[in-house]
């Protein structure tokens, strides 16, 4: 007989699953991760950028990427956006008469599109096979094609639209900027910063880059200041540390301070990114998302850890279900068809 009591026991077992809601969330909450102290990154200053695309070409060379043709003649590299074969692109904002550089109204502005190397990357959290990884020291978000299964969850997860899959090949990989980590051993830093003629893209430790960005924001628009190019040396950098990187350190020049928005993009977004940006035009208008200080990786992993931390919940629910099922399962007997 199926009695009311049996039914209630069933409810009890089912209810155990719903009990997740009352678990103290703080016990399993996963906070947004922070940047590693020695993390490397870039500072892109849109007011210094002249849109020459030297960084785009250098990135192609450094990563051995083919040209992408979208024009009528296949004579020059014309990618329409970053892709599985184009990891860096300078885009242009245009408004009205386009008279004034770095003006939202009747002006134009540039913006670099490449990996932000998040403190708490969505792609690393999403990747089921650890092919996206964040280096604990440099903080570079790297990709390992030998581990990758090509599920493209990283593509869907990234709010900046950075990892992209090569659909044109049966063995396509994910393509993204890895801060030229393959060149660091030879003393070369990110190719885009190496070739940038104006210092709009600057390589260095994110901590130092952030200080430099804040220095620029504190200056008065229009006044002259020294702008570094290539690599920003760390504060109090020893000659030994400097010797790790090739190329002259002191490439600074005099430039006028831009009419900045008082915000360093990447300082707090999603817990911070190691690539920082300065702009005179609204960041959303140049294609950067408006992100909260809490990362979505933290939200996602908090849910997962709350439900599956130590597998305590699933095992408890399974025990309840097994106990109930053992009472209720009656063998399917052909000749004795009957349910007690």
């Amino acid at each position, binding site marked *: 007989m199926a009695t009311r009591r049996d039914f209630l026991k069933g409810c009890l077992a089912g209810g155990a699953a719903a009990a997740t809601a009352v678990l103290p969330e703080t016990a399993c909450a996963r906070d947004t991760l922070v940047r590693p102290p020695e993390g490397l990154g870039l500072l892109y200053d849109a007011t210094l950028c002249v849109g020459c695309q030297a960084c785009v070409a250098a990135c192609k060379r450094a990563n051995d990427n083919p040209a992408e043709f979208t024009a009528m003649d296949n004579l020059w590299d014309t990618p329409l956006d970053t892709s599985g074969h184009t990891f860096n692109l300078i885009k242009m904002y245009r408004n009205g008469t386009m008279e004034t550089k770095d003006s939202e109204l009747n002006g134009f502005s540039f913006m670099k599109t490449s990996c932000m190397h998040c403190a708490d990357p969505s792609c690393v959290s999403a990747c*089921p096979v650890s092919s996206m990884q964040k280096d604990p020291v440099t903080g570079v978000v790297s990709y390992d094609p030998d581990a990758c299964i090509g599920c493209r969850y990283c593509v869907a997860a990234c709010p900046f639209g950075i990892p*992209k899959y090569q659909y044109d090949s*049966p063995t396509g990989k994910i393509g993204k900027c890895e801060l030229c980590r393959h060149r660091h051993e030879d003393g070369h830093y990110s190719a885009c910063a190496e070739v940038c003629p104006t210092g709009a893209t600057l390589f260095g430790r994110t901590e130092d880059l952030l200080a430099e960005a804040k220095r620029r924001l504190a200056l008065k628009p229009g006044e002259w200041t020294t702008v570094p190019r290539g690599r920003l040396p760390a504060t109090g950098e020893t000659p030994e540390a400097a010797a790790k990187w090739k190329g002259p350190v002191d490439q600074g020049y005099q430039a006028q301070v831009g009419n900045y928005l008082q915000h360093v993009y990447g300082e707090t977004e999603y817990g911070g990114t190691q690539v920082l940006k300065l702009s005179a035009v609204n960041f*959303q208008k140049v*294609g950067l998302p408006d992100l909260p200080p809490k990362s979505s990786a933290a*939200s996602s992993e908090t849910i997962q850890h709350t439900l599956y931390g130590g597998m305590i919940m699933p095992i408890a629910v399974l025990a309840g279900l097994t106990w109930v099922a053992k009472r*209720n399962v009656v063998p399917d007997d052909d000749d004795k*068809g009957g349910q007690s």
Partner: protein
Amino acid sequence: MSAHHPAAPVGGKLFNLPVMICSVLIAAMLAILFVRFIFGLGAVTNLNDGYPWGIWVVFDVVIGSAFACGGFSVAMLVYIFNRGHYHPLVRPALLASLFGYTLAGVGVLFDLGRWWNFWHILWPTYANPNSVMFEVAVCISAYVMVMWIEFSPVFMEQWGLKVQKQKLEKVLFFFIALGTLLPMMHQSSLGTMLVVMGPQVNPLWQTPIVPLLYLLSAIVIGYGVVLFESCVAASAYRRQIEMHLLQPMAKIMLGVLAVFMLIRFGDLVVRGALGHALSPSLEAFFFWLETACFAAPFLIVGTPGARRNPARLFLAGCAIMMGGILLRINGFLIGYDTGLGVDHGWNYFPSIAEMIVTLGMFAIEVLAYIVITRRFPVLAREGAAH
């Protein structure tokens, strides 16, 4: 309680029109898959950098596995809530689930860009336990195995393996419990997959309680699919519809659906996201379409009298399935936009080739269902009802 009746093969010819149509679709699918594996995903799909997931993921896996929740929903009713009289529904529901899930697993392989590495997801040195997709993959793999074990008495019966069947039935309760837990885990996680996408997903579908919404809707869809399949199987095989089972089950379905709707709208109100449903946008239109599909069963089979009408039960099942499709399509495709701040102009609509593959997968399910119900004891023996 009512005695449950032994199942028996339906019998009859295997070569008929539905089987031929399914075979043609499967052949077309194989041709397209050949091209896909030789030339890559770009050759046959409309996937792009703004929409990396298309219908092979969202339809074949996310929706396909939810549609395959009939076995889970009915088994929960029978074995956990001890409603033994629903027993005749277990086998057919489990059979549909078995194929739905097995094919969802196979369908993933078509979509994986680097499919030869697929085993990494279950390999300790590669696996990332923080990844929602890892959890989905592990649970679905485990559930497929559990379901084959749950269903194996059917084959044992047919092949006269009495001793093995008795041995298995001694431990079957454990697999039934596991078969209830695993879908709870991964059906909720299929919703959690949206969370890491953050603000790229419209607030109408991006919520911290998305796992609960996906789990509850999967249970409701499970009952809806059983209504749908029972009616289709009854008409195709010219059998009596098991009205005495479908009527009370429809009532249970409405109960779970009511809970789902309360939580769905409670969440929207608490988060203050309802405003997005009032803007003149495609997302808002699809939100109301989805809501209409989930609300329709209350109008179609809301009264005991209405539940006595098989056509209405069938329609209610269809409405639930439609709502389930929309909830998932809306979250993963319609409400997903990676072009934040600036309209990147990414669009996605599946290519004919993608649709044929999805249809081909569905055809395999139908074909297998026909062959197995005609040759193995799945459906309740005719004339034994009531």
